[in-house]
């Protein structure tokens, strides 16, 4: 009876465990202290945006909270002065 009870509690979806390999992501600004986040330096900022110009979230890029904050700040500054697009792509010359 007890075994029955346990099996009933399991829902069908949870049986399969997702085993995704997580690589430990390291904040690249913490790893290398020489890197400076600057809104004028578009080439390095472009790495942290998607092709469409969106800011890549922390959970994907792996930057730490502190540096992500300054990154978003820099990217938004670059956007206001038309160095980076708000939306859409730009061909960098």
């Amino acid at each position, binding site marked *: 009876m007890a075994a029955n009870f346990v099996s009933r509690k399991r829902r069908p979806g949870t049986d399969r465990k997702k085993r995704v390999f997580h690589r430990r992501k390291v904040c690249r600004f913490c790893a290398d202290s020489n890197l400076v986040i600057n809104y004028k330096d578009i080439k390095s900022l472009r790495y942290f945006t998607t092709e469409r110009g969106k800011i890549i979230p922390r959970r994907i890029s792996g930057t730490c909270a502190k540096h992500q904050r300054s990154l978003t700040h820099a990217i938004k*500054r670059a956007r206001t002065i*038309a160095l980076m697009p708000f939306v859409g792509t730009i061909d960098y*010359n």
Partner: protein
Amino acid sequence: MVHFQKTQYPNIPIFQVSKDARVRKPFSYNNLYPYRRSFLDKSEIPQENLLTLNIFYFSNIGSISHPLLWVCRALYPKGGFMRRYETIFIIDNDLSEEERSPIFEKLKDLIQQHNGLQVMVDEWGTKRLAYEIKKKARGYYVCLDYCGSGTLVDEIERFFRIDDRALKYMTVLLDKDVDIENVKEEIAKAEEAKAEKAKAAQIDTPDVDPTDEPDAESKTSDKQENETLENEITSPENNVEEA
């Protein structure tokens, strides 16, 4: 907003929050007092001009709010009077160099009027804009680095807002408290470095005479060649169109 200029020292009464000001929350007291005292020590204001106010202020709210304290804050800004700013502005790309230069002169005047210090003008040149501004795809970027107070920034931004030649501007605060002498040293160093670079460049190319005449000639000839090349390139297309 009370704007305070350095030249107005002797005429205005200066409020000083006395040491025994009883402010309930210690952090707000700390916020108010120490930098103000250090500023007063540094400044050359005679003691007679200082009005010491005893502010007994008990508030149930954590943050302190009192008109007199607002005045204090306006008079003695947290970071001192000199701040370092950077203004990036985009000039209309269609303007020629001669039409551009009055803008820089005007900025220089503005900075001088407000007791500022122009550190550097960095012209990035023509760049493609990430999005169209005033229906224009290209702009001439200039980065102006200077020291000054908030009033100077207001003036510069007002100038850009009125002026049609500037497409867009953005001011960024670089440093809240700046020692002018340090900045001046920095400028001098930068200029030295520039001069050395120029020297090095000259040494690297000793064959080129300092007189630029032959250079200029060769350049013009190059240009002509390029033009002819372009013509050659474009001509077949024309032919195709004609055909």
